[in-house]
């Protein structure tokens, strides 16, 4: 199955009555903010995932927009490679503004 089909939400595991697939839910609390991961739920299909997400995670106007993503579609770094994976940014202090010394009498910098 292609990635495009997966993104459409076509189940690649047999969906039986016992186990609806799992979705990760992201909620935008209000305009101007990013969607934030709030938890997961199970649903038979994409549409049900959205309505369940609304009922479960926004009962008190906690959101203006919801994303539901099949859990298995998420790629994540593994904790094992934690150090080497993030290492490239570790020794690049010059990426931070505090690396640069500017005399105190230079305004607005």
């Amino acid at each position, binding site marked *: 199955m292609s990635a495009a*089909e997966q993104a*459409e*939400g*076509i*189940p690649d595991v047999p*969906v*039986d*009555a*016992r*186990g*609806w*697939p*799992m979705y*990760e839910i992201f909620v935008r609390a209000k305009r101007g903010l990013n969607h934030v991961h*709030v*938890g*997961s*739920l*199970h649903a*038979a*299909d994409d549409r*049900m995932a959205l309505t369940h997400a609304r*009922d*479960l995670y926004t*009962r*008190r106007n906690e959101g203006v927009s919801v994303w539901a993503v099949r*859990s*298995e579609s*998420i*790629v*994540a770094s*593994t*904790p*094992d490679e934690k150090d080497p994976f993030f290492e490239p940014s570790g020794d690049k202090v010059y990426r931070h503004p505090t690396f640069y010394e500017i005399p105190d009498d230079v305004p607005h910098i």
Partner: protein
Amino acid sequence: MATAEQAPTGSRGPEETPVEPAALQRQFDETIARDQRIEPRDWMPEGYRRTLVRQIAQHAHSEIIGMQPEGDWITRAPSLRRKAILFAKVQDEAGHGLYLYSAAETLGVDRADLTERLVEGRQKYSSIFNYPTPTYADVGTIGWFVDGAAICNQVPLCRSSYGPYARAMVRICKEESFHQRQGYELLLTMMRGTEAQRRMVQESVDRWWWPSLMMFGPPDDNSPNSERSMAWKIKRHSNDELRQRFVDMTVPQAERLGVTLPDPELRWNEERGRYDFGTPDFSELKRVISGEGPCNEERVARRRKAHQDGAWVREAAAAHAAKQASGRATRQEAAA
């Protein structure tokens, strides 16, 4: 079932005892010592994982079973306002159960399995929900006592060392305050009513007080797993400390409400700056937990029936999803 928040397979399974390299253990210990959170994909000792699965599952089951005692009053609450409030409250409890099942699943367990363990009576839930609700005042008393006790228990759990559990608790605690307040307000209203209503409130308080104190579990000197849970910072305070906090919080509320708490030993201790109170009958707690409470069978049977009665809905939804998916695949093929 795979999830981005799921545990790495290497450290799963109660039977196998994987090699726990000292370095991983050290990393884990340091994270706990620094008061940082353990996250799903981190290495963790098998005992830590097992303790969490048990605790979170029991907690989830309690929320789900907890809908029943009050749920019975939804159709009989005396006004549309009270019906709507109670409906929202019970719906919140369902939500709490689902937040917690979601947290449990990050530890590599399957939600359907947990439900099965509950309906087969293989996993426990809070003893308090095995008591009956014969009067409408019980709706108020549950909100005041049971949700109040839940707040005492759950606020410290917002700092629990396991990230997904702590985050679920933050969400839950935000909602519990409504539960407690609606209960107390209901009782206040009844206390302003007739003599019969006041008697009904007092009678309800008499029945619920001791079982509510039992919610905090056995006394510290008889609580085998407590110490380890506290060392892992899953739990932050002992059972007795939480019970004391609940008493200290509730006594002034009872005075304001105008009811008597049924404990002759209850009195302010100037020296300690806290209330002294009697000892709950912990043998009753033991009996209720082991299945001999007044409503244990009814509660589990009802959950089992609801699960069975819902089977056709789950099957139909799955069939619909499969049909939609295959229709979409055919259309895509035709378009290609």
